[in-house]
C-alpha cells in the first residue's frame, strides 16, 4: 500500500518505525526491516526527491576506483574505506532481489566494470591517487589489469587530453540509481510498507523521548522509533528535537550531473572515469540505462540546500566530458539535469547511531558513497533498531567528537594539492614567468592565514577548508563548533589521531 497526500489518501497515524527520508539509505533500511518482518514501517519523503543526493547519484559500485592517498592512510579512514569494500559484496544479492521489481526495461546493473584513465590535464593529484588505487587493489587482492587506453570501448578523448595509462577494474560496475530507487519502492509497496509523499516538518518530543513526526501539513505519525535518513536535511531535522546537541556539523555538498542520450558513435559499455580529483569525485561516464549515459559530477560545499545549477558547472561537465571522454558527447541530447546535495560531515565520516534521546536514530553523512554503502548500513541499523549488536564499527556514532585524520600541516598541503588540480583542469594558465610552485605558495599562504584567523587546531579536509575560507557562514560554523568543543573539556577530538595506519 502506498499512501500520500498527492493521491488523497490520509497517511497512517502510527507505526513501529518511521523513516524520514526516501533516498537510498532510507529505502534500503525499510527493505531490510520489511524482509525481517520487523513491524509496521512508514517511509516519509517527497516523491520527486528534490535536491536529494540519491536521485542525482551516478551509483558507481566503486570503492577502489574512488581510492585516494587518504583512503588507507589512517586507521579511521581505513575503517571507512572497508565499509565500502564490505558493502560491495552485498550488491549481487541486492540486484537479484530488486530486478523483478524493476520497471525500466533495462538491467539495474548497467555495467559490471570500470576503466580508470590517467591523463595529464589535472595535476599531480591524479597521479598520486592513481597509484594509491593500484596499491589498495593489490593490498586487498582485488583484480585489475593495465590496458592500452585505446582499447576502452567508446573512449575517444581529444588528443591533447588523452590518457597514457589506464586500468581495467572487472569487479567494479554501476547501477541505475533512479531505477534502483523505483524498484525498491515497488518492492516495499508489495511488502506492505507505507510510503508517504511528504516531508517532515519536525520531530515530536515528549520529555526524554521522540514519539513521532509531524508532516509538512501538520499530520502526525506516532512511532516507536524514528530514523532520520534525510541526507543533507538531517541535521536541521534532528535539531527540532535536540536543539542543544552538538553533533559533528554537516554541510550540503551540491553536485551536478547530466543524463544524456547518445546520438552517434560507439556506446560506453563500462564506467570510464578519472581518479578522484580536486575537491570532487573525478570525471566519469556511467553507461545506461538504455541509450542514455550519465556524466558526472561536480561538488561544491554550500551554505544552503538547493537544486540550483551553476553555469560554471554545466560548462565544466560538458567541456571536460567532450575533451577527456569522447568528442561525440558534443552531440548528445541532454534528457535530464541532475543536482543533489551530498551529506558532508566536518570530519568526512558518516553519522550512524542512536541519539541521546530515546527513540531517535540518525543515519547520514555518507558523502559520496551513501548509495553504494546503503545495503550494508541498512543491515547494521536494522540490527540496532531490533536491539541486536550492530555490524559496523561504533566509531561513526553521531555523538562523537570529530575524528582526526590529519595535522594542520597535512591539511594545508592537501589543500594546496587539491587547488592545483582544480587550477589546471579547467585550463587555467599561469603567466609565462610564473611557476607552479608560486601558485602553490599562494594557496599555502591562504590556508595558513585561514588557520591563523580562525584559531582552530583541527586539520580540516581540503573540501571543508575550501568552503570555510570562502563562506562567512561556513567559517563561523566551523570556528564556533571547535570553540564549544574546547570549552567542553570532555569532548576533545578523538579517534585515530593523525597516526599513520
Amino acid at each position: 500500500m502506498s499512501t500520500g497526500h498527492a493521491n488523497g489518501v490520509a497517511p497512517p497515524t502510527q507505526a513501529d518505525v518511521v523513516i524520514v527520508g526516501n533516498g537510498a539509505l532510507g529505502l534500503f533500511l525499510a527493505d531490510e526491516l520489511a524482509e525481517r518482518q520487523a513491524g509496521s514501517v512508514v517511509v516519509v519523503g517527497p516523491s520527486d526527491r528534490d535536491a536529494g543526493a540519491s536521485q542525482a547519484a551516478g551509483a558507481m559500485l566503486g570503492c577502489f576506483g574512488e581510492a585516494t592517498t587518504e583512503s588507507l592512510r589512517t586507521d579511521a579512514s581505513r575503517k571507512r574505506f572497508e565499509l565500502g569494500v564490505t558493502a560491495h559484496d552485498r550488491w549481487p544479492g541486492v540486484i537479484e532481489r530488486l530486478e523483478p521489481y524493476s520497471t525500466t526495461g533495462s538491467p539495474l546493473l548497467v555495467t559490471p566494470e570500470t576503466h580508470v584513465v590517467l591523463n595529464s590535464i589535472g595535476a599531480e593529484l591524479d597521479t598520486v591517487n592513481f597509484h594509491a588505487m593500484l596499491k589498495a587493489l593489490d593490498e586487498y587482492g582485488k583484480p585489475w589489469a593495465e590496458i592500452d587506453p585505446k582499447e576502452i570501448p567508446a573512449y575517444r578523448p581529444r588528443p591533447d587530453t588523452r590518457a597514457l595509462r589506464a586500468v581495467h577494474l572487472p569487479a567494479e560496475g554501476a547501477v541505475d540509481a533512479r531505477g534502483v530507487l523505483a524498484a525498491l519502492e515497488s518492492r516495499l509497496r508489495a511488502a506492505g510498507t507505507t510510503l508517504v509523499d511528504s516531508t517532515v516538518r519536525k520531530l515530536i518530543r515528549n520529555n526524554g523521548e521522540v514519539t513521532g513526526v509531524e508532516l509538512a501539513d501538520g499530520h502526525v505519525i506516532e512511532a516507536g522509533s524514528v530514523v532520520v535518513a534525510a541526507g543533507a536535511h538531517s541535521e536541521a531535522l534532528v535539531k527540532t528535537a535536540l536543539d542543544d546537541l552538538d553533533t559533528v556539523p554537516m554541510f550540503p555538498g551540491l553536485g551536478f550531473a547530466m543524463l544524456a542520450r547518445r546520438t552517434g558513435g560507439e556506446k560506453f559499455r563500462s564506467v570510464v572515469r578519472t581518479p578522484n580529483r580536486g575537491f570532487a569525485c573525478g570525471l566519469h561516464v556511467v553507461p545506461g540505462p538504455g541509450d542514455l549515459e550519465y556524466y558526472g559530477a561536480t561538488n561544491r560545499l554550500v551554505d544552503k540546500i538547493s537544486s540550483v545549477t551553476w553555469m560554471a558547472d554545466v560548462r565544466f561537465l560538458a567541456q571536460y566530458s567532450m575533451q577527456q571522454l569522447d568528442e561525440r558527447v558534443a552531440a548528445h541530447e541532454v534528457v535530464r539535469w541532475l543536482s543533489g546535495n551530498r551529506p558532508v560531515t566536518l570530519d568526512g565520516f558518516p553519522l550512524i547511531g542512536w541519539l541521546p534521546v530515546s527513540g531517535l536514530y540518525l543515519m547520514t553523512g555518507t558523502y559520496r558513497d551513501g548509495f553504494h554503502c546503503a545495503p550494508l548500513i541498512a543491515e547494521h541499523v536494522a540490527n540496532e533498531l531490533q536491539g541486536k549488536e550492530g555490524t559496523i564499527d561504533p566509531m561513526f556514532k553521531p555523538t562523537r567528537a570529530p575524528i582526526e585524520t590529519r595535522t594542520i600541516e597535512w591539511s594545508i598541503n592537501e589543500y594546496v594539492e587539491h587547488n592545483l588540480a582544480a587550477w589546471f583542469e579547467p585550463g587555467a594558465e599561469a603567466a609565462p614567468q610564473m611557476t607552479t610552485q608560486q601558485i602553490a605558495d599562494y594557496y599555502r599562504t591562504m590556508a595558513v592565514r585561514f588557520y591563523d584567523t580562525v584559531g582552530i587546531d583541527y586539520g580540516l579536509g581540503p573540501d571543508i577548508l575550501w568552503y570555510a575560507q570562502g563562506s562567512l557562514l561556513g567559517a563561523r560554523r566551523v570556528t564556533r563548533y571547535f570553540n564549544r568543543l574546547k570549552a567542553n573539556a570532555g569532548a576533545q577530538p578523538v579517534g585515530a589521531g593523525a597516526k599513520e595506519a
Partner: protein
Amino acid sequence: MTISQSSVVDTVRGLVDKQLNLSAHGFELALDDDLWSLGMTSLTCMGLMLAIEDTFEIELPEEALQEATFRTVNTITAAVGAARPMSETKV
C-alpha cells in the same frame, strides 16, 4: 549589554583598524570609508566578523553574513545593533 551607540562605533572602528592595520600606516579611517577598497579580503573579513561577534557577544543573523554588511564602519555598526546576544543562540 549596555553600550552606547558612540562606543559601539568606536569599538567597531578599532576592530577594523586592527584587522586592516590602517593607523599603523598613518591612515585615519572614516565611518563611511569602503573597507573593500582599503585592502579588506575575504580572510580579513572573516577575522573581522569573528572579532565583532566575540567582542560584542552577539551572533550576526545569517543574512548579515555578506560583503555588504562589512562595507563600512557604519554598516557594521548597524548590523551589531540589530544582532541578538550570543547566549540566546547557538551557531
